[in-house]
């Protein structure tokens, strides 16, 4: 009798994801045995899991593995972005407890959901097999739908969750349909084959038509997740309605995951560049303009950051359209910096839970008097989001800008620069409102919870550190992109 042929697998490639899943399951079980509202052990186990995953992930630096019958991979892009995801998740875990308690939302399921979402996001980046990517996307999305509606008592939160769910389901369907069409055209669901039979000069060819439709549908699905205009309509409502800690998480992690996949997909679709680059060009332009201009008139800080995240997605899309080493380096650099900035900014907003969770710009007035450290951190985060040196945000924009010029996208580069000025306007307006009456008679001081202090310190040190010494991250990003471009894969399989 012939022995069953089990493909040889390399566990280490999936070890980080598996660790996070393991931690999630452990937290899920642990929660049953803890008294209600006792969340510190959950947080600690979660953090431990994320830390371990981060360690395993770091160990994979430099490896280019494709394994599990080519459904899982690990390359430097995956390492870099997964680490960004892990750090963002860890930071949110760290400061979430205080917010949940202040809002009277002591739901233990927050922790496992967050960890599952993290695993999903990591999975999205750790594969070129679109079915696996879809799996990751769904794990991430489903967890996020629940997290959005976590404030059960609030209509706004429920509305946001429903809206997010309905639109998200549509987007997922688009994405899935795209995968199906790709399979129809190429007989494979691996994104690396997407342009294998693409012949630019034959528009009437059947596979060509399928490929075009497939790519278009997948762009819609991912554009939704990445909050690119015109698929951004859900963003302000969901960002505003969701509990602030969930917003912090989704703003950072979904963006990193979605752009990670977009980066891989569009690099794989390089031969079809002429086809998709005008579309991405328009999307980038629209996102930058809509995001930044509409953010200008928002009264609520969460909505403002939501629209600004559309603008940031636009900047990242500029990097994808330009499609050269510098611009892709910029995309990776920007994603890491953006994750830190967003988590920090929403983290500060989550401090407002104690003041009735109002996050209008007016409600933020006087934060500098009440919690000077938080206001200071917010000011730096805003400067970084606006791209003012010496912060990480500046270098992120720098690479994208440089890449756009190098790629001949002069108009996009100029729009990027101009919309940055618009961005500076609303970021500084927010900063000003924090400090507006900072000099009035001292108000009652509220202490900033210790986990939040740690989180903000990590963000600030990270952002200013990267602002002063951008080289290590820039070099790593560049290496990651170069390796992907050279396609150096070490395939581990038993065939």
């Amino acid at each position, binding site marked *: 009798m012939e022995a069953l042929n089990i493909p040889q697998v390399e566990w280490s490639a999936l070890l980080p994801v598996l660790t996070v899943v393991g931690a999630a399951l452990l937290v899920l079980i642990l929660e049953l045995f803890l008294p209600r509202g006792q969340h510190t052990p959950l947080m600690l186990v979660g953090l431990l899991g994320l830390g371990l995953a981060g360690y395993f992930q770091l160990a994979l630096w430099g490896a280019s593995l494709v394994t599990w019958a080519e459904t899982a991979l690990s390359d430097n892009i995956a390492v870099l972005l997964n680490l960004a995801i892990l750090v963002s998740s860890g930071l949110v875990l760290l400061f979430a407890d205080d917010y949940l308690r202040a809002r009277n939302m002591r739901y233990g399921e927050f922790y496992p959901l967050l960890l599952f979402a993290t695993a999903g996001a990591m999975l999205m980046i750790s594969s070129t097999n679109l079915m696996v990517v879809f799996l990751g996307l769904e794990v991430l999305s489903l967890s996020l739908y629940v997290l959005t509606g976590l404030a059960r008592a609030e209509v706004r939160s429920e509305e946001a969750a429903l809206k997010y769910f309905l639109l998200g389901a549509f987007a997922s369907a688009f994405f899935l349909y795209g995968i199906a069409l790709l399979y129809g055209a190429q007989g494979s669901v691996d994104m690396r084959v997407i342009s294998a039979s693409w012949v630019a000069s034959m528009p009437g060819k059947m596979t060509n038509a399928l490929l075009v439709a497939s790519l278009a549908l997948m762009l819609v699905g991912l554009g939704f997740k990445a909050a690119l205009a015109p698929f951004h309509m859900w963003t302000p409502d969901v960002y505003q309605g969701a509990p602030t800690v969930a917003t912090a998480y989704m703003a950072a992690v979904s963006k990193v995951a979605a752009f990670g996949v977009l980066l891989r997909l569009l690099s794989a679709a390089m031969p079809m560049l002429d086809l998709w680059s005008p579309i991405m060009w328009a999307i980038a332009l629209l996102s930058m303009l809509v995001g930044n201009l509409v953010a200008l008139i928002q009264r609520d800080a969460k909505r403002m950051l939501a629209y600004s995240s559309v603008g940031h997605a636009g900047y990242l899309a500029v990097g994808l359209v330009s499609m050269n080493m510098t611009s892709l380096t910029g995309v990776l650099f920007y994603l890491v910096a953006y994750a830190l900035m967003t988590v920090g900014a929403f983290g500060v907003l989550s401090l407002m839970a104690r003041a009735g969770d109002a996050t209008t710009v007016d409600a933020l007035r006087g934060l500098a008097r009440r919690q000077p450290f938080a206001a200071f951190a917010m000011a730096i985060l805003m400067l970084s989001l606006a791209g003012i040196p010496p912060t990480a945000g500046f270098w992120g924009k720098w690479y994208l800008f440089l890449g756009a010029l190098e790629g001949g996208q002069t108009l996009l580069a100029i729009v990027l*620069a101009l919309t940055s000025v618009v961005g500076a306007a609303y970021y500084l307006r927010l900063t000003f409102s924090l400090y507006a009456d900072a000099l009035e008679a001292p108000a009652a001081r509220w202490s900033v919870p210790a986990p939040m202090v740690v989180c903000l310190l990590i963000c600030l040190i990270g952002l200013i550190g990267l602002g002063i010494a*951008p080289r290590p991250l*820039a070099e790593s990003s560049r290496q990651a992109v170069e390796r992907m471009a050279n396609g150096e894969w070490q395939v581990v399989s038993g065939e």
Partner: protein
Amino acid sequence: MGGYNLAAMEWAVKVLSWTLWTPLIGVFLLLLIPRGQRVLACAVAIAATLTTLGLTGVLVVNFDPSTTGYQFVERVPWLPDYGIAYLLGIDGISLWLVVLTAVLSVLAVVYVTLAPALPIGSNTPSPEHTRAFLCHLLLLETALMGVFMALDLVLFYVFFELTLVPTYFLIALWGGERRGYAALKFFLYTFFGSLFMLLAALWLAFIHYRATNEMTFELMRLQQFVAEGGVPLDVQKWLFLGFALAFAVKLPLVPFHTWWPVAMGEAPIPVVVIFLKTGAYAFLRFGMPLFPEAAQVFAPLGMALAAVAVVYAAITATMQFDMKRVALYAVVSHAGFIMMGLFALNQTGLVGSVVQQLNHGVTMGAMFLLLGMLHWRTRTLEINQLGGLKAQMPLFSALFLMVMLALVALPGTNGFIGEFLCLLGAYQAAHSGQVATLWVVLGATGTILSVVYMLWMFQRVFYGPTPERLRSLPDLTPAEAALVLPLVALIFWIGLRPAHFTHSLEQSATQWVQQVASEPWRVAHDNSE
């Protein structure tokens, strides 16, 4: 192109860095002090600025005026892939601007120390917030130092932008009534302008990259590349305009000046005092030497704009109701003189414009310090609310008179040297047919107009009947007078012995003219001397 002064590098490896970062070290020390310890905070800040001043003294003593090129050069790769370096260096032109920044910073900090406890909203930090105020001020000093020292376009941009951050907060927190609007307007205007500089710098670096396959943002190398004909004139013109827009906004040059009276009108006095003419410096360090041919093409336009700026701002100054705003428009008017000197593109004009930049710091610094001290007493600077101060505050009036006379360029004061040389340079340029004489004549009327607005203001404020509420105003205390005296001394020192300062400028100026002016032009200039 002069090389680096290698001999000076040996021992002085880090003098520039120390000068640059000492204020920042002061910021960290300040953060260690508990809030509300006003005296201690002031002492630390004074110590930090004095140390910086001492270090600039080291620079002056060791500066070798007989060589061209940059001295005390430091170079550390920053982002080598893109040819970005932490590259510092000064020449005879930036030397004095660095020293002046250090001097003014000391005075600004002492000014804050002397400030009486005033209610909130009076542009003066309360004891509790003095530490925060000083932190921003010291950060601003570092940023300004960086602007004057950076020789890498990206590093320069970083410092150029960094000046915005502390200034924004100083205005937004301690500004006047409309501080929010003023701070935002200030930030957006200058941020918008400087982005075009960044765009132009990148474009230039790309052209260099395509030609040599090497990325660099180093001023000297790019300058040489352009000088060797690496950039066609059409492109040069656009690049020059990109740089010029950034610098003209910062300068502030009419018609890009509208943020200036708004922002600085609301800004606390120490900010106005140390917020030096980075725009003019940037023009002469980057804009013109990088694109000499474009600079020549645009010289007539620049000269016209500058002359119009002189007159327009002077007329506007005449119509202001507030002493601070009169002085602010005087700044805009004087910026016009600086640009006239620069766009003359000859040695006389350049020396004049550098002297005028120094004057701006010295004279305007003294003027704003005095206005601030007056504001402590009267709580208003509106001209029609004041009167008869001469009888109330004789010492103040005497000092103010001296500063004012320097401002209207009375011979014997620094203002005369600066404006005279600027106008002479401009006239030489007109004589050689490069710019229209009309503009020089127009600009020259600015000296008369400055007398009009200054003397008229002086008359209304210092003479005439004293309003009831201003009876028994205390005169300047000895400490306050001592704060202004160094600047008054400088006014006469520069005015009577300008050679002490222009001596170290000579070589750098000559080199600058060689880089910027074309052959026939230099001949014309030589003939006219």
